[in-house]
Each structure stands twice: as C-alpha cells, then as structure tokens.
C-alpha cells in the first residue's frame, strides 16, 4: 500500500531489526525481512478486512496479540511472529473455520489452488476436531458466468470489497451477522437479477471455491468429440502471457506458439487468434474515431466497447453514455462472425457445421456471446463457447499434453496473423495505443512514428495523455477497474453541460484492474506485480512483431480488399458492429 510519509519507525520482528515508513503494517514489515505470517482474508489488492484472525502475532512485553494484516508497526515494538502458542492459536482459528466448511476438496474446482486447503496442509491438519456445521445454502448458477456456492464461503469479505469498492457494482454483500453471516447478491436475489456485470473479479480474489467461473470444459470436449463438426478456436491476447503460470512458467512468459500446438493437439481443426480480431476492431474503431474527430459525425469522446463487463456496467449505470460508445464489436466476436462468413466461404465450409470456441481471460465473455441479436450476425451464433484461461489450463492437463516439452505450433493466418497493436489489447491502455497508431495514419496519411504511447501504460487507475494530430490537440484517457470510471465520465458530462470543448476525444475503459491481463478468468494469485509482468510480456510481444500497426497486417488488408470493402462499409456494419440499450440495474 502506497503511503506518502517521510517518517520511519524502527522495530524488531523475531529479533530482526527493521526500519520502515510510518504506517507500514506488521505484515508488510515481516515480508521485508522474509518472514511469512499466514493470512487468509487479506489480499494484496485490497484493504484489510481483518475478518479471519489467522495473522495474529505477539507484541513482546505485553499481552497483546494484534492482527498483523491491519496493525501498523510502531516505534520500538518487538514482535514475535511465531512461537508454539501463536501457532496453536492460529491452528484453533483454522479449525473453527474448517468446522463450518464442507469437506469436499476432492470434488471442488479449487482443489490445488485453494488458500484454505493450503493452510490446512501447512498446519498439518489431519482430522476434523470440531463438529461440522456446514450451512445449507443453495448454489447460484443463474448468470452462467459466475457460480456462487455460499456453503464454501469463509466470510473473508474479499469479494464484497472487490465488487463494492474496486468495481463499484455492489452486486454482492454480507447478509445477517455473527455465525450466520453469509455472502449473497444484493438483497438476497439471484445473481442474474442483481447488478452483477460478470467481470469475475470476485472469483479471482476468493480464497476458496465459493465463487467460481461457470465451467464449460465438458461442453468444449463434446464439440471436439463430434466428428461432424469443424471446430475453430481463438485465443485472446492476455491468455498467452498468463496461462504459463498454471504450468510453472514465470508470469509474463509468452506461450503463443505452445498454445497453438496444444489446441491442435486437443483436436481443434483451425486455430485463429483473437489478436487478428483486435486488428480489425482497430480498423473499424479507428475509422469511427476519424469520422467523429474530423468530420464531426458523432459524439466525442469516443469510448471503447470491447470489454463486455464495461458495456454491461454502462448499460446499467451510465446509459447516458450510449451515443459515445464505439459500435465496433469486441475482437473475439469479430473473429467469430468472420469465421462463419468469410472463412467458411473461402474454405467451402458449411457454417452450420462450424463451432467457434474462444479462450478468454474473461468470465464476462461467456455472457457476451449471447448478449444481443447482434451476436448472431452470421446467421448462427458467432461464437459458440467462451472458456477462461483457467478452464483451458485444466483441459490441457486433461488432454495429457506435456505442455513444457511441446514444440511451438503455428496458427492459421487467415484470421490469425496479428500485429503488435493487436497483442497489446490485452493490457490496460493497449486499445487506446493501438487506435492512436492507426488513427494517426488515417488522419494524416503518415505513420505515428514513436509507436509507443507511454501515458497509456502502467497501473494508475486513470491515465491521461495528450498528443497533437494535424495541429489539433487530442486528449485521451484510460480507466481500468470500474471504480475508476466515474470520475472520467463526470468530466465528460461536466464539459457537455457547460458547452465546453469535450473533456477528452477518446477514452479506453476495461472493467478489470490492469485490463484483461488481470481478467477475472486468469490464473489465481493476482497482484500488481503479476499484472506488470503479464503486461510486460505483451509489450515485448508487440516489439518483436514484424508489423506493429493494425493497418499493416497483410491479412487484414486482404480481408478488406476481398470481402469487406472498407472500414464502416455496409457489410462491415452488418457484421462487425452492434448497438446498446439502457438496462435496469436490478432485474427484481
């Protein structure tokens, strides 16, 4: 947690002297000297909820046993982090939690990644010492994106903090109190009737199996086993730099080639890349921008729309922004619709026998594939199934693929070859940066020389930047994490009301902190350090690509010259664009 203070405190942890800035918690100080205090409710992304009590430590010379996660270290304190009595108390805390938790590890989706399970293992729990009182609460699968299993909830409070503070959605809350406290959608309704935007951040932060992605791996295997079907797959930008974490690779390792190979091995007939779709998105969205900026056709700022959780949030909470939204579909929908039209046409395939599976860092994409009639623009459902990175990792293991020794494969370039601009879509700021690279060319006829647009990069919640095109100032903003978007939109509204120049010309918004690299369907254990490593993986990919601007992609050029005509053509409109409508925040 960043604090701005020049004062420091000097203290001792297990006899080791530490000097830390004032306000540093005992837990943070312990990390500095390589002491590992067990935690359960605390998550590095979130302020402490101090709910579980497993992180207690002893202040020497007193009988205080404060919680390390929320107690600031004080001058002269002598802290003991481990001794037999402390360990015993922690064990009791754990046993109490376990007495309320179902003993179902073998059949739980978090088997092997559960933080409660790993603590039970670390503490050597070998028997259930207290009578088990597991609450009888129903599973909620109403959204078909996020599954709530409140029986497995240990009331740590992370998901609420995520949903209420990080995301400002307020779909989840605690109801009742004390031992009866339970996690439930706002007002005890089904999650599908709540304001939930399916971002999946709750599932990425839950320490246990109480919140989980809606698992569709079995459906994918069924498609792959059907001999009559031609199965097409595509992978999103952010997947390639995160999936390695499930196989022991350092975060950020770019495994594109191995993924292509693994997908073919699993039985996919054609392997495309969502990054290609991102290049097409930029052609359309960039052209939309030019129309609004140069020809005054449409409202400024133009706001990006490739994040379905953001679209849902906007439709529920900020529908006055609809006219600002780019009508361009998200990259995986574009690859979906082009597969069932362009690709089928060129290959002589019957689109009714083709299925498109998209591998996404995202739980909201599961919702997006049926969000409106526009998602059936090919005459079929354009994307048939959307799986998260976590689901794909499980499938690769189920398929018996030795991922580490797998040689790299190739994609099918027709809707697969991509540019650096396409790959950076996966990180916050990347869509904006990619759009600048192409809009500059469209507006001036000249390339945006510097290519990289630093103000859009990094993890600051709201990033702002300016550049000059044709002597005009272009103001841009990037927001990620729904909690950050309000400020930006308020500036847009204020400028509008006052009849001022638009506050910005273009805004990129992603629901997940860090963008899709920090998506709700990515491997567990997200922290800012991890987000930066994954983002770095994508920026490196960008630098190493032969082409770094979407309009330079030869297969994108081919698509337009032989099929779509030009960006925003009638055909492009029919296939690649969609519309929005206001939605009630609560469906009950």
């Amino acid at each position, binding site marked *: 947690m960043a604090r701005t203070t020049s004062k420091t405190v000097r203290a001792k942890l297990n006899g080791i002297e530490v000097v830390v800035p004032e306000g540093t918690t005992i837990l943070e100080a312990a990390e500095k000297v390589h002491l590992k205090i067990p935690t359960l409710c605390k998550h590095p992304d979130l302020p402490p909820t101090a709910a579980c009590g497993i992180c207690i430590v002893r202040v020497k010379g007193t009988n205080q046993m404060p919680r390390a996660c929320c107690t600031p270290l004080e001058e002269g304190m002598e802290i003991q982090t481990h001794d037999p009595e402390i360990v015993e108390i922690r064990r009791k805390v754990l046993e109490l939690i376990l007495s309320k938790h179902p003993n179902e590890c073998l059949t739980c989706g978090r088997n092997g990644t559960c933080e409660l399970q790993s603590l039970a293992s670390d503490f050597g729990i070998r028997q259930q010492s207290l009578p088990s009182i597991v609450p009888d609460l129903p599973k909620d699968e109403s959204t078909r994106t996020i599954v709530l299993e409140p029986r497995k909830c240990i009331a740590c409070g992370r998901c609420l903090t995520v949903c*209420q503070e990080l995301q400002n959605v*307020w*779909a*989840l*809350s*605690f*109801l*009742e*109190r004390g031992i009866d406290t339970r996690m439930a959608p*706002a*007002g*005890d309704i089904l999650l599908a009737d709540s304001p939930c935007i399916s971002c999946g951040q709750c599932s990425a932060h839950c320490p246990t199996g109480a919140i989980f992605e809606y698992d569709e791996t079995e459906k994918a295997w069924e498609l792959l086993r059907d001999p009559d079907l031609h199965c097409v797959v595509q992978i999103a930008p952010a997947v390639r730099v995160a999936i390695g974490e499930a196989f022991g690779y350092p975060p950020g390792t770019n495994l594109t080639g191995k993924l292509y190979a693994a997908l073919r091995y699993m039985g996919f007939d054609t392997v495309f890349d969502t990054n290609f779709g991102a290049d097409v998105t930029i052609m359309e969205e960039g052209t939309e921008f030019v129309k609004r900026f140069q020809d005054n056709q449409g409202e400024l700022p133009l706001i990006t729309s490739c994040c379905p959780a953001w679209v849902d949030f906007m439709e529920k909470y900020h529908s006055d922004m609809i006219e600002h939204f780019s009508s361009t579909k998200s990259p995986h929908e574009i690859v979906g619709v082009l597969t069932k039209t362009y690709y089928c046409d060129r290959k002589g395939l019957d689109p009714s026998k083709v299925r498109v599976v998209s591998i996404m860092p995202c739980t909201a994409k599961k919702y997006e594939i049926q969000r409106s009639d526009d998602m059936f623009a090919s005459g079929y459902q354009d994307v048939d199934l959307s799986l998260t990175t976590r689901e794909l990792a499980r499938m690769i293991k189920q398929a018996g693929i030795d991922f580490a020794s797998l040689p790299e494969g190739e994609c099918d370039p027709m809707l697969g070859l991509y540019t650096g601009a396409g790959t950076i879509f996966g990180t916050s700021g990347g869509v904006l940066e990619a759009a600048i690279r192409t809009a500059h060319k469209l507006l001036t006829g000249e390339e945006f020389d510097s290519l990289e647009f630093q103000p859009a990069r990094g993890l600051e919640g709201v990033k702002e930047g300016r550049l000059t095109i044709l002597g005009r100032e272009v103001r841009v903003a990037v927001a990620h994490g729904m909690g950050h978007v309000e400020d930006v939109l308020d500036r847009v509204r204020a400028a509008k009301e006052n009849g001022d120049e638009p506050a910005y010309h273009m805004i990129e918004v992603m629901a997940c902190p860090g963008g899709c690299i920090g998506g709700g369907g990515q491997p567990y254990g997200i922290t800012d350090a991890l987000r930066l490593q994954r983002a770095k993986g994508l920026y490196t990919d960008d630098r190493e690509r032969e082409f770094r601007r979407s309009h330079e992609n030869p297969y994108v050029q081919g698509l337009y010259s032989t099929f779509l005509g030009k960006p925003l053509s009638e055909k492009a409109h029919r296939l690649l664009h969609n519309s929005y409508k206001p939605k009630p925040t*609560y469906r*009950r």
Partner: protein
Amino acid sequence: MAEKDLSADVALAVRKWQKKRGALIMVLHEIQGRLGYVPREIALELSKQMNVPLARIYEVLTFYNFFELEPPAKYVISGCMGTACYLKGTPQIMQEFSRLLGIEVGQTTPDGRFSLTTVRCVGCCGQAPVVLINGEVHSKVSPQDVPHLLAQCKD
C-alpha cells in the same frame, strides 16, 4: 404508504431524516414502524433516492433482527423461551404448532396467516409455559391445547 405514491412517501421519510446521522437506519425504522416490514420495492426506491446501493440497505436490514422483509402474518404466534417456560415445555408446544402449520419457527405460512417466532422471557413465569398470539398471553399451554388455540384464530 400506498403502492401508488410509494416514491412520494419514501421521499417524505428521506427528507425528514437525510440531514441527520444514521439517516438510512432512521428511514428504515420509520418504514418498518408504519408497514410492519420493509418491502423490496421500497428498499429499491430508497436506494435510488438516497443514492445508497441496495446491497448496503440489505446489509442493514438483515443485520438487525428488528427489521422484517416479509409482511407480518395475520397471526403472530410467539412461544416464550424464558427459562421457566422453556423447562415447562415451550419446545414441545412449538413443535406441535410447526407440525400442524407445516412451517418452522421463523417462517410464515404461504397464505400469510400464521407465523411462528419465539420471544425471550415475557415476565409471566408463574403462568409458564406461555404463548403469545398477536401479543395476547395464553398461559399454562400444553401441546394438546394447540389445535384449540389455532381454531380460535378465525378468518
């Protein structure tokens, strides 16, 4: 608080309390007091008018036992759980009510006529065991009396 001018009524309660500390709780108290429960539509309306997420409102509503989320039953039957009543058989009496009404303590019959609850000592220990029906004390109740007590709750 009639359904039709629900937002106006909520607005009135909101205006009365909004400047005070703990305004949300006070408004909820007022609604509970007037209706005997806090209907979902009112909670939603309140969420809009006070700009408080519905999630927060339900956190408050379910945290305090005082608030009800369902309309009160026509007949509220409360068994006394004070020590004397408990020892003299309130649990068995409540079991009989449960059996005949087909609901557990804490629930309301689907037709909204009966609900079963328990109360702490009502201070008539000499009359134990005691059952309250809409606040009226029935003393020295036995499980055999239950059908008769229910029969008295007509219409």
